[in-house]
């Protein structure tokens, strides 16, 4: 049976500041879910609430329908925003230790530590102290720490921040593979292009409330349809001005972006363009996640 993390009506205030204001959403297994929101939206507080690291004024966190307790949390993996490792401890021993705290036997923890370090291309740093590693490699060790016990739920707060492209690819691939293997993966990021590439599903919050949630495809194709048209001889897309329900949103270097309302047939637009001149480009445009995000939190 697929697993499901449910956050329901989470509320948390710090004095006069409301960090979470009735936040509810769910994370199904088998998907990488992007958790987005502007700074101070409540993402980190929500993630900490999953692990009991912050007290809730109201609401509940449920795993497969049951309240999350310590036994469940031991099967979760967490990578906090502010990285947390023992600087002077050896990488391999550190991962073994964390694996054991999550319920692995000593041999299983040692084997998993080595396997994950090899997988993340830092197997040769097993005997190094964490403080001697580069930022990128420390980030990989931190991810390995969240993964070493093969968690059923993976919660990662800004896992891609500060990584080079190779590091982003490596960690991104791990997240996708984990989801494919049946893990629930929830991660926050401000790198929206990367989120769009990695995630099937996105949840956007603002001021501690859910604003938008859905699959990337749904969000990209939701709202008014957009057309990109380039017509030789009509660089300003004057032809579109005569079609009811069509608006020109942007014209740049002979390429026009048109917004169609629901009543307009795209064939009508194509015919009008062909009448105006030779059509060299005519395509539907998906909304980029960054646009969805900006609209959602505006």
């Amino acid at each position, binding site marked *: 049976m697929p697993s499901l993390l449910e956050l329901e009506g989470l509320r948390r205030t710090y004095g006069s500041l409301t960090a979470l204001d009735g936040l509810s959403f769910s994370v199904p297994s088998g998907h990488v879910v992007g958790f987005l929101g502007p700074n101070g939206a409540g993402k980190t507080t929500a993630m900490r609430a999953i*692990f009991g*690291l*912050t*007290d809730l004024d109201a609401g509940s966190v449920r795993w497969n329908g049951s309240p999350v307790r310590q036994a469940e949390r031991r099967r979760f993996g967490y990578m906090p925003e*502010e990285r947390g490792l*023992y600087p002077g401890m050896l990488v391999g021993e550190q991962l073994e230790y964390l694996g054991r705290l999550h319920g692995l036997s000593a041999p299983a923890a040692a084997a998993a530590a080595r396997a994950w370090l090899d997988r993340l291309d830092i197997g040769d740093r097993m*005997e190094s102290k964490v403080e001697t590693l580069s930022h990128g490699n420390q980030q990989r060790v931190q991810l390995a720490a969240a993964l070493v016990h093969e968690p059923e739920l993976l919660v990662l707060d800004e896992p891609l921040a500060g990584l080079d492209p190779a590091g982003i690819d490596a960690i991104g691939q791990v997240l996708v593979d984990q989801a494919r293997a049946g893990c629930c993966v929830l991660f926050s990021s401000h790198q929206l292009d990367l989120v769009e590439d990695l995630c099937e599903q996105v949840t956007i919050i603002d001021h501690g409330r859910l604003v938008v949630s859905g699959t990337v495809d749904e969000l990209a194709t939701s709202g008014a349809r957009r057309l990109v048209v380039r017509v030789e001889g009509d660089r300003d897309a004057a032809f579109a001005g005569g079609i009811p329900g069509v608006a020109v949103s942007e014209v740049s270097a002979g390429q026009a972006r048109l917004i169609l309302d629901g009543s307009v047939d795209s064939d009508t637009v194509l015919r009008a363009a062909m009448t105006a001149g030779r059509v060299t480009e005519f395509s539907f445009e998906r909304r980029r996640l960054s646009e969805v995000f900006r609209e959602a939190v505006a």
Partner: protein
Amino acid sequence: MKFVFIGLILAVAIAARVLLYRRRQRRKATGVVGQGGPASVGEQEPQREHRRLSSALSGVLGDAGLVAKREIRERVRGRIFRIGTVVILLAVGAAIVIPAVGKGSSAPAQKVAIVGTDGSGVSSLLGEAAARVGTKVDVVPEASLASAKSALRSGAVDIVVDGDRRVLVNGPLDSNNTASQTSALAQSVAAALGIAQAYRAAGLTPGQVAQLSQARPVPVQSLQPTTKSTVKTTSVIGLVLLFLMLTQYNTWIMTGVMQEKASRVVEVLLAAVRPLQLLGGKVLGIGLVAMGQAALIVVFALVVAAAVGSDILHGTAPLVLASELLWLVLGYAFYCWVYAAAGSMAERQDQVQTLALPLTLPIVVAYVLAITAASSGSANLFFEVLAYLPPTAPFAMPVLVGLDLVSWWQFVISVALAIGGTVCVALLAERVYRRAVLRSGQRVRLHELRDRRQTRPAAP
């Protein structure tokens, strides 16, 4: 014989250091070879040891046992810990050996001139007389009384024995002056010669006189079995060690908690274990290392003391040592929670120092008062009250034991109060820790922790 023992101990210490050094070198070498490959034989050996300890601790205590095991490994592995232990052992060894060896070597042989031929067996009496006052003699034959007196005046000899008639010394003659070895020896020799004369007058042969002169006194036992100075020395050495260890181990706890908070690893840990398990494991792990180190020091002290015949094994001194060891455990148990709570409120070294100052105050006050009481050999009512208060009892109670001012039931009451106080402090400290350790950015103040809705992990 003493030097053989000391040499043996030094040899063992050096061998242990060499062994540790070679093991470390081997581990380094295997670490390089083993990179990227399966664990080498050299790595497996310490891992097996750790696993035995781990399975024992984690089997009984679960996650707290795992936390404790990590603390033990990281502490014992630290260079500072190892060097510190060796330095303490050397200091303790020196504190025991120097007075004991000094005592034996402080009496140089007395030069005793015997005038004329030793027809009365004087030289055989000299050895016995010297042994009674704890010194040795070198016999110098002198042909005449005049030459003997001349040698005495010049300082070439210390005592002149004129046949069996009289004893001459150069210094002022004071029958009460027993502080001088020469004076004591002269009086001892004079007494022995007088007795020998009396024996001869009673008709005993010189052989019988010599036999009687070898008579040994029967042992004397006192109901007050030791001198106060021995207990005082033992008590003061123990108090100094108690103070150093207590402050050191508590500082470990405090900085350990602070570092976990500063490095944010506590957030990863508390995502998997309860705050009490984490804190309890840390306290237990460091406590076991501390007790191990303390036990090592005490055993070392006892072995060295036995080897050199130190006074610390006599009378009530061992009882004082045992009492100090027990109070080290109780003192650590009490203060470790306080320091852990304080550590959770800081995330920088300077903040830790600011917090440590008021916490160290009761320890310092109790320590100074205890040293004063131990040195003076008396305790006032205020000091006796301190022996029942958990923060000061670790220093005050062992001193009262040394001075024989408490009965067993008073001791038990003090221990019970300390245990009760520890439980209360532990409960309070766990609350503070739970609420403070996840709050970052600046030093947490106590009044900020009153609001239970501040950042803290929720109890599952």
